């Protein structure tokens, strides 16, 4: 028995006579069978948010309850895919409806015809629990897809087969108390429910991004949460894409939430061409893309974030380190606001619903470094871009995000205008993981790393203070020592923090290269400091060989970096020969 539309207004439909209507059930709306979800029940009316354009839908049209919740299909084939907000593959939509997205298109999230080679690990008769690995499938040339016992299943393997299977075919049968359960390569999971884990672990391993300002000054831990707020044009999207390209996560889920169509196309075109610095394989082979551009239906934009994080959780459960980029969570919050407005809910700040803070917190809580159900360690690092109106982070979405995220990468329009990229402001940004990660850096990069980091941070702070004085008294009146601080801070800013995403070499810096670069700058600092003590005026350091070399260090390929570092070291030492008297 189907329900009947009683009222339609934009993406919200009011439905009467819908049997078995439960919160968050997925329904099919109207004669075109548009996908919708029940978001409110009110005196016998079910209120549905529709994930597709509702133009032409009329009162009186039928609504069918599918009796399932909004869920994603998890299985091999997710990687390299590009989905819309409710996990419909965009290339399949294209095959069905052409270059423009039509409505009511019904396509399977995973290719149901493709056969995958399944290699069992478990044997017949073995006891298995939820989350255990039954076997593996080579999903791409770099990622082994682990086929997990679905959540809620405990029992004994009655049969398990090897060979080629589609995602729908049964590969194992488990005998449980409730009866026999057939297990396929794919399983469903409702997107709004976090997948369970055993316990959370402290975040003490950094996510290496190859971006100097991030790895050195404001690192994020694997399993951590980070926010990138910034006005338009400050380089948010480029920063997110750089993270998606170069971070050392094994799996990357990139959610383009309400963003530009051409940008998603750029990602689509570029990722298959880019090589992973570790494996040399195309980056696309570890990536899942979710693209709900700004002009695609707003309700599906709300869902896209959940679709993304659920897929991320699934790979985490296999024991992988997953990085999730959401660009931009503001668009998601705006979708919440739009739906809330249509429901005539009492608004909170700036028209956003009162539950915005809770929703944001719930989302970031799904990140973390954990023991998954089978005991292995996996992580989700969640990095959300925020697009505050006018760049003013006092607005609700930024504030609610900053309350729950532990890293804040503040993008700065004035830096962007000076073409200082990545335009991350070193004075206002912070990372609360610095202490957690100390040990890792000392053991894996260098003992003196923390010292180098602290000194460079200090110099940058000092520079800001001195600059305030300069505003009052002019540069001239500064003591030579302070001039020297400005000199070194400039080197840190221009030759270290600035990093070009478009330069083939500079786009990625290994930790070793970062260490050698920073070390060189600190050596320069030491030498200049003692030279100033000897009475050498700061202006004599202009254009010296050591500085020219430091400026070019970032463009030096990784394989030559050690040698370059040594040459540079000699140039720096020349400073020790400088005396108060000019030659």
């Amino acid at each position: 028995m189907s329900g009947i539309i009683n009222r339609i207004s934009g993406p919200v439909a009011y439905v009467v006579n819908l049997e078995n209507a439960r919160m968050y059930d997925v329904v099919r709306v109207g004669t075109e069978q548009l996908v919708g979800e029940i978001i409110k029940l009110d005196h016998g009316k079910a209120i549905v948010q529709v994930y597709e354009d509702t133009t032409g839908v009329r009162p009186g049209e039928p609504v069918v309850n599918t009796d399932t919740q909004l869920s994603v299909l998890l299985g091999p084939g997710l990687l390299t895919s590009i989905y819309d907000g409710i996990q419909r593959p965009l290339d399949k939509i294209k095959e069905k409806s052409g270059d423009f997205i039509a409505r009511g298109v019904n396509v399977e999230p995973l290719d149901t015809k493709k056969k995958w080679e399944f290699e069992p690990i478990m044997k017949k008769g073995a006891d298995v629990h939820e989350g255990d690995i039954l076997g593996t499938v080579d999903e791409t040339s770099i990622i082994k897809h682990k086929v997990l016992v679905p959540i809620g299943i405990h029992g004994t393997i009655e049969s398990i087969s090897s060979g080629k299977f589609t995602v729908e075919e049964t590969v194992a049968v488990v005998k449980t108390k409730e009866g026999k359960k057939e297990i396929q390569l794919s399983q469903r999971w409702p997107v709004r429910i976090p997948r369970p884990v055993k316990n959370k672990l402290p975040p003490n391993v950094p996510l290496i991004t190859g971006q100097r300002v991030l790895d050195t000054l404001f690192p994020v831990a694997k399993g951590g949460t980070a926010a990138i707020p910034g006005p338009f044009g400050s380089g948010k999207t480029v920063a997110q894409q750089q993270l998606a390209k170069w971070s050392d996560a094994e799996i990357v889920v990139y959610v383009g939430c309400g963003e530009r169509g051409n940008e998603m196309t750029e990602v689509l075109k570029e990722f298959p061409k880019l090589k992973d610095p570790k494996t040399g394989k195309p980056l696309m082979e570890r990536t899942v893309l979710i693209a709900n551009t700004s002009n695609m239906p707003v309700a599906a934009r709300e869902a896209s974030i959940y679709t993304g994080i659920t897929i991320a959780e699934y790979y985490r459960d296999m024991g992988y380190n997953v990085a999730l980029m959401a660009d931009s969570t503001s668009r998601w919050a705006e979708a919440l606001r739009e739906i809330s407005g249509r429901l005539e809910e009492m608004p909170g700040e700036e028209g956003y619903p009162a539950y915005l803070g809770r929703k944001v917190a719930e989302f970031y809580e799904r990140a973390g470094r954990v023991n998954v159900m089978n005991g292995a360690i996996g992580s989700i690092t969640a990095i959300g871009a925020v697009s505050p109106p006018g760049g003013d982070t006092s607005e609700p979405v930024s504030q609610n995000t900053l309350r729950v995220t532990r890293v804040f990468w503040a993008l700065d329009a004035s830096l962007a205008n000076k073409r200082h990229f990545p335009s991350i402001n070193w004075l206002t940004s912070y990372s609360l993981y610095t202490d957690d990660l100390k040990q890792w850096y000392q053991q894996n990069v260098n003992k003196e790393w923390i010292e180098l980091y602290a000194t460079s941070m200090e110099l940058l702070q000092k520079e800001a203070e001195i600059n305030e004085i300069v505003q009052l008294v002019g540069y001239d009146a500064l003591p030579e020592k302070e001039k020297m601080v400005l000199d070194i801070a400039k080197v840190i800013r221009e030759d270290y923090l600035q990093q070009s995403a478009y330069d083939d070499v500079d786009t990625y810096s290994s930790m070793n290269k970062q260490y050698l670069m920073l070390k060189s700058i600190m050596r320069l600092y030491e030498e200049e400091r003692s030279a100033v003590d000897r009475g050498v005026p700061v202006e004599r350091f202009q254009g010296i060989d050591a500085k020219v070399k430091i400026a070019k260090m970032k463009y030096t390929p990784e394989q030559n970096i050690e040698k370059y570092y040594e040459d540079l070291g000699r140039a720096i030492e020349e400073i020790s020969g400088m005396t108060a008297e000019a030659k």
Partner: protein
Amino acid sequence: MSDVYYKTVKQVTSVLLFVEGVKDAGYNELVEVQLPDGRRVTGQVLDSRDGLAIVQSFGETRGVDIENTKVRFLGETMKLPVSEEMLGRVFDGVGRPRDGGQPVYSDTKLDITGSAINPASREEPSEFIQTGISTIDVMNTLVRGQKLPIFSGSGLPHNKLAAQIARQAKLRNSKEGFAVVFGGIGINSEEVNFFKKEFEESGALDNSVLFLNLSSEPSMERVILPRLALTTAEYLAYEKNMHVLVILTDMTNYCEALREISAAREEVPGRRGYPGYMYTDLSTIYERAGKIHGRQGSITQIPILTMPGDDITHPIPDLTGYITEGQVVLGRDLQRRGVYPNIDVLVCLSRLMNNGIGKGKTREDNRGVADQLFAAYARGKEVRSLIEIVGEEALSANDRKYLHFADMFESKYVNQDYYEDRNVDKSLDLGWELFSMLDKNDMKRLKDEFIQKYGQWDHKREQHSEEIAEMVAKAKPEEELENAKKPPAASAPAGKGKDKGKKDGARKH
């Protein structure tokens, strides 16, 4: 249902009609309202319930009454008949001819809301469009399929700039121009006359379609107009293989109309009273730019908006900037200095620039020249603001060079004639010429090989344009003077150092 007239209008506001007894009006369905005096206006269903339809009228609701007004639901959404014969024609905000000609008859009728282009079908825009304007071509490159708005302020020459772009825009080394679809949203008759005259003079009118809604005409039409313009553009681009340039001016009026409807519906307002869905709504306009795999044509959009109070953080420019692929910003300060086009390059951006420049497209040195121009001009402007604190005498020789660079950049590079069509090579060379005012060693963004190839530091005086030659000449002796002074200055400890410090002044780090 099209023959049923409802005479059950129960409530009327300036833009909305509440019609009772309607069972099944479709969302966004088109409505015809017949006024007692026989006038007809069209409208659209905004909210449909069993027994009530809320209709947004595109025309004035003046004269609507409760007793005699009749409403007919047309059973379809708003469609626009399109054909190639629209080229050279002028229409009003709902698609009626306003040039005295016949309405367009065509079997092809397109839904004006359009549908989203599947991101998987999009082709990355990468063909360089030469606008003949240096600051755009070299520093904020426009490519085919891009949406690049002009952020302006009241009284600034955005219309002139748009007209100049429309006149000059072409692919490099090609005469092939664009078909122009022009949407005038709530503009006044002088502006209309200006554009008409421009298009007539440049001969572009035959290749243009104009949709005009004057500021005196119903504001509700402004919500429809850009969609008509873009539907026409899509037809010409994707069915008729044309390259279409869409100019929409002024988007601020569009947003005002949107706010008016929202207020009439008593919706929960977002920032500054604009509806919370304005971002989504604007995206359904701006995202209709692009290129599609396997289709010949393209749609490039140049929306123009005036920033209320020159405030770039106002919701209209703010939301626009988050959707469009960059922005060209006009500055009042430059306007006062008499610079045309008064493009304030430091806050401008073209996100698709990198796809459209470089070898084979513009020139190999483009990226570096652009970055260096940005960096040097930024520094020059910093120095300019520094003078206010420390005075010009306290500047170092090097800082003074940057100061002069900023001046020359504005008057030689940004500034150009309304009819001056600079090709990109010339624009790039002009950049190199300006660089020769500065120290070669300071040019960190330029690759050595390009400095060798294009650098003009060694040029003789007569090879430079007059003013720059003068600048270069001025800068040099001073530098030499300083070098000459250096040894004694450095060898003498404290006292002399101070003296020399004055020259080196507030060297900004």
